[in-house]
């Protein structure tokens, strides 16, 4: 068991109205797993991720970080420090963790395709390069679990495809666990071994996906699953 959550609940009060963002959710994530969470906006998927990362406290319920001692977070936007070079941005976690090296090694830069840009500033990067740097910052921490909040949604189609491919390679080679929030069902089906559909703060569907990587979007089983999940989100 990587991570276990029990009766996790999160409520907000917005102008006097109580909003239940997460409603008594129970989930278990296993090691070396790739989970995608999909759902309409406001369904609680980002809230779940933020609670797991500790960025926000839960209203009630518990999170048991079994094997997930170190958690990395990739945000929707790159959120790079504009005054740091690509190298320094990637190695930002070293400021708080003496066990990490002061700079990323060649292998990581090569994997991210940022070797030629390691001394550039964020303002000089394209959107895809900036997001790869942000991913590098998370990988650099060597986390057991990577939480990703719609990390590719602002990128163009081709950049998104290449980053999805990169993430899959990483997942297969480095045996990391990923929890990936997206509103894009195709993306979830391309990446996830397990898809959670959320609605109104609850898990509506918990679906295993057994297809081999790389997955064929044109295949019948892919399209059937896509329709099945889409209809679950819609209704």
């Amino acid at each position, binding site marked *: 068991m990587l991570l276990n959550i029990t009766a996790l609940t999160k409520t907000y009060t917005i102008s006097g109205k109580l909003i239940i963002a997460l409603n008594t959710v129970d989930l278990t994530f296993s090691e070396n797993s790739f989970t995608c969470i999909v759902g309409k906006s406001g369904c609680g998927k980002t809230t779940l991720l933020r609670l797991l990362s500790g960025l926000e406290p839960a209203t009630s319920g518990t999170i048991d970080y079994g094997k997930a001692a170190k958690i990395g977070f990739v945000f929707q936007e790159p*959120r790079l420090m504009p*005054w740091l070079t690509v190298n320094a941005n990637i190695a930002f*976690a070293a400021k708080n963790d003496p066990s990490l090296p002061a700079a990323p090694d060649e292998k990581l830069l090569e994997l991210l395709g940022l070797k030629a840009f390691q001394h550039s500033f964020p303002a000089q990067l394209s959107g895809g390069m900036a997001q790869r740097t942000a991913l590098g910052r998370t990988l650099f921490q060597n986390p057991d679990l990577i939480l990703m909040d719609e990390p590719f949604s602002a990128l163009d189609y081709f950049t998104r495809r290449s980053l999805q491919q990169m993430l899959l390679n990483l997942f297969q080679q480095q045996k990391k666990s990923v929890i990936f929030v997206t509103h894009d069902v195709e993306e979830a089906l391309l990446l996830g071994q397990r898809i959670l559909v959320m609605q109104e703060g609850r898990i509506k569907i918990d679906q295993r996906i057994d297809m081999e990587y790389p997955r064929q979007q044109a295949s019948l089983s892919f399209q059937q699953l896509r329709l099945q999940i889409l209809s679950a989100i819609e209704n």
Partner: protein
Amino acid sequence: MRTWKNGILLPFLLVLLWYIISKLQIFSSYLLPSPAATAITAGELIRSGMLWQHLLISLQRVAGGFLCSVVVALPLGILCGRSNSFQSYCWPILEFLRHVPPLAAIPLIILWFGIDEGSKLVIIFLASFFPLFLNTYSGIKGCDRKLLEVGRSLHFTAWQQARLIQLPAALPAIAVGLQLSLGYSWRALIGAELIAASSGIGYMILDAEQMSRPDIVLVGLFAIGIVGSLIDWLFLALTNKILPWNTETGDKYAA
């Protein structure tokens, strides 16, 4: 290069106009000396060392007052930006003082600090404090919440958040504050020297007026403008060197 060439055109036309007016003797040369006469006076003032002497004294005063203001305004701005309770104590009095121009307080300042260096220092300090304080404050306060969240996801302590994220993020705003402060210092000093001083470039101008030497007044004006621009230019070159990612300084004007 091209903008530099464009910028030369208007000054050239103005000098030409100045030359024509003085050539036609529309005004008496006691009121408007010719460009040539002014240039000769400038040469004399430079050769005798008088211009340098006054300039140096003025520059020393600016450096002293500006430094005092950096030492006080910078930490105060950071503290106010970081801590809401600290800000709540300081804000009303600062808000009040902000609206009092230092020149209005000159009679009192001279009464308290005399006409020596003390009063100049105080006037420069008062003039340069607010642009630096307010820019530092808003730079710290306006730090992108999303960047701070990155620090939290890396489990940074409050001190690390301030030192590694908030302060560097505020540096461009602080640089703008420093640049404005320097400009304010320079102008306030000239004002102070015009009112009470026995040396400095402002005094040189006042003294020339009393001796009916408009050529020296003009040389003084040119010197003030040139030195002011030079300080600004040097400061910009320095910030561009220190903050290479920065795009905020440069074209900010606030008078």
